[in-house]
């Protein structure tokens, strides 16, 4: 990527809604052309304020932000004409869905013929055919949200800001919209997507900025966040033959030197004869070590599985690190997920 690809660049951006009371502070991030950046955070974390700052709806209290080459302090109409914004709050006109779409396109100066074609596309894409002649207040919450996203896509833009666009949507609609956004991003549209739904951010975003209490905690890819902040995860190894008590003790001691803790079988569980489980930070880094240990002891590993790292786990881990009393439960933040993913089948070399 070149510097020409950067469409948003902020440096120590901040907004104070009252003297000394910052909604967001020291925000430094960038967005590249065709990239989807997720702003992930709890309610009130500062996500909406960030969107309002970057779309010139709020003047920054400190720091700088360059959007599409323009300083947001000085930019106005010319910049906003290149942006699309789906606000978190419902914004409606009191005419039918169809009329709303054409009226919004008219407001943006979209030629009538293009607007007509686009309205049909949006009605189909966002499954609003049955609602085309209904007024927005007669729609369900999810339909209204779909309509609002559809309406914004009536005009051309270079950056699309979506502030919690999938709230109230069913899984199918959500996937459909996310898939469409992914296609648009591949076509060069840059997207800022705020959400507090973890798997949505994981599924859609190229990079994720985790915002908490007005501060940027992390900015990276979902995988990297999981890797860095996913906390301790459980690894299960099934040896082809049961370990003797001596070998088991040796394994526990050896793995303990890597910061891992061997887990006793849970009461009532029925572990396989050769099964051992341990919990470790950066668990995946111990997998090669475990296979070497098995080789060194002339053991064969039948199966090895690692608990899946989730963005939710990483998010809770990060929040826990910043808030006393909200630390993740013992056993790691990912324990709630409890998903075991097979990472290796059969014996290892």
């Amino acid at each position: 990527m070149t510097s020409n690809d950067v469409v948003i660049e902020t440096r120590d951006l901040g907004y104070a809604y009252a003297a000394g009371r910052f909604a967001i502070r020291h925000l430094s991030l960038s967005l590249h052309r065709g990239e989807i950046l997720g702003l992930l955070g709890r309610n009130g974390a500062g996500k909406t304020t960030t969107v309002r700052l970057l779309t010139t709806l709020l003047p920054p209290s400190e720091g700088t932000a360059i959007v599409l080459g323009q300083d947001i302090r000085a930019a106005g109409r010319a910049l906003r004409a290149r942006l699309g914004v789906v606000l978190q709050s419902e914004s409606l006109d009191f005419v039918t869905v169809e009329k709303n779409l054409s009226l919004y396109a008219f407001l943006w100066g979209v030629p009538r013929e293009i607007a007509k074609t686009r309205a049909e596309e949006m009605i189909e894409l966002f499954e609003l055919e049955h609602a085309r002649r209904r007024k927005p207040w007669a729609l369900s919450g999810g339909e209204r949200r779909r309509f609002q996203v559809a309406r914004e896509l009536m005009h051309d833009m270079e950056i699309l800001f979506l502030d919690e666009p999938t709230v109230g949507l069913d899984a199918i609609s959500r996937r459909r919209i996310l898939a469409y956004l992914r296609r648009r991003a591949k076509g060069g549209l840059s997207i800022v997507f705020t959400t507090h739904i973890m798997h949505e951010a994981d599924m859609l975003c190229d990079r994720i900025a985790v915002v908490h209490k007005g501060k940027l905690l992390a900015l990276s890819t979902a995988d990297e966040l999981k890797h860095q902040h996913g906390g301790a995860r459980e690894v299960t190894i099934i040896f082809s033959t049961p370990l003797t008590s001596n070998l088991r003790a040796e394994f526990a001691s050896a793995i303990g030197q890597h910061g891992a803790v061997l887990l006793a079988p849970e009461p009532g569980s029925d572990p396989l004869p050769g099964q051992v489980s341990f919990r470790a930070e950066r668990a995946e880094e111990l997998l090669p070590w475990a296979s070497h240990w098995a080789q060194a002891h002339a053991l064969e590993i039948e199966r090895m599985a690692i608990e899946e790292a989730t963005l939710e786990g990483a998010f809770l881990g990060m929040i826990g690190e910043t808030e006393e009393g909200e630390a993740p439960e013992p056993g790691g933040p990912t324990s709630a997920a409890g998903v075991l993913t097979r990472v290796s089948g059969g014996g290892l070399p």
Partner: protein
Amino acid sequence: MSLPPVLRLVVRNFASNLDPLTIVIRFGQPAITIAVLGTMFSGIVASALTDGLSYTAFLVPGMVAFQMITGGVVSGNLFWLDRRWSMTEQIFSGPFLRAEYLGGLVLTTLLFSLVGVGIMMLVGLPFIGVSALSAVGVLTVLLTVGLGSIFFAGLLITLGTRLRSANAYFTIQSFLQLFVIFLSTVYYPITSTTPKVLATIFYFNPLTYAANTIRDAFNGRFCAADLIGIGVLGTLAAVGFGAAIWGFRTMDLGPIQ
């Protein structure tokens, strides 16, 4: 080629927020007042009290002046609904300036008021005679109603930028309408029998200046008081518009629900 932003906003204001029933009621009510109230009171009110005019002929200019309230209320409500349903913020996130949005509201007000003036004159002219108005008179009427509309629109828009409750907005707006209409010379003249307190209050009401000026324009009886009236309305229009600009510059754009 698309229209300038202000005109696009005016089209949107008309298309999106003015449903037919509201329009019929807004224009129908004063038209019915002229037809029914005018006819009924003409037989009761002595023409001596209304400068030798029939009560209907007295009432028609009052109802024309009333259109500045109608226009102002339409604009104020439009803005309130936009704010309540977050359309103000949505529009400001697009290629529009606050000044253009405000300009769009003012133009909508003026168009609405002027259409209202036309309807009232159509309804009223059979009662007062087709030759009642000179070209200067028509211009005076339009100027008076236009200035008054800007004042009331500015007042209600300012109110809308400050309040965060629909109940509060509509209660104050209704009270204001009632106060302004009944404490003016729309329905009755100020005579020697009018209590001094009321007469004084009447002269603090812009609708009084508008009704008196329009009445004189209808009757071809311009006087210095009318010029003062137009001056007062012009000043108030500037104050109302200025207040609306201040309200716009300082209001929180966020949702108010």
